[in-house]
């Protein structure tokens, strides 16, 4: 079997974003970069992409991990994703006066 250019990626969705995924905690997306995975998520779950991106960049207070690694240390939206990888989305726990 040849390697698919659109591998299925498991994506774990936090509570706050589950209204977009019909309350599913784990959904499937495709793509070989994080940007493609997010585009695929947004195609399946309209509006989800906007909760993750702002002006084409990852939102500052959304953390996304590929397996155990924060994507900010792997090239952010350009991070490579391959079949069998698990993507986890977690909103930052943060606050303050600014």
């Amino acid at each position, binding site marked *: 079997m040849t390697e698919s250019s659109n591998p299925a990626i498991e994506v774990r969705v936090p509570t706050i974003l589950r209204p977009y995924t019909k309350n599913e905690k784990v959904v499937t997306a495709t793509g070989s970069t994080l940007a493609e995975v997010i585009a695929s998520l947004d195609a399946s779950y309209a509006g989800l992409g906007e909760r993750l991106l702002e002006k084409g960049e990852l939102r500052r207070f959304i953390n996304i991990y590929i397996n*155990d690694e924060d994507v900010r240390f792997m090239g952010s939206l350009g991070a490579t994703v391959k079949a069998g990888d698990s993507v986890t989305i*977690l909103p930052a*726990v*943060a606050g*303050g*006066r*600014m």
Partner: protein
Amino acid sequence: MTLKVLRAHVDAIVQQSRDEYPDEACGVILAPLAADQGQRLKLMVNAAHSPTFYEFDSKDLLALYREIDDNEEEIHVIYHSHTETEAYPSRTDISYASEPGAHYVLVSTREVIAPAIEFRSYRIVDGIVTEEPVEIL
């Protein structure tokens, strides 16, 4: 809804807030799924190390969510300290609040200026803040 919280947890949170002053202190109280009372206090590192901002370290955050998944727990309380202002959520606290099921607890360490300790709890859902009573057990 009333927040029920153990005296030992309140004392430990106040102590942590003093220890980490002038930085904001933060952490969580975890509860078994669907329980109405927190069981396990977990102090978190404020990765921002700031008197005006707090943020859980990104790796710690992932580890925390994995841990509660494995233990069939949920985040019952998310707390942080305000160093000089009242124990009320700031605009930023409200905009980043993303656990609608959690109690958001604010502790103020401004007792260095005014003597009473403030330990107050809120629900923050869709940007709406609702204060709730705190019952210390």
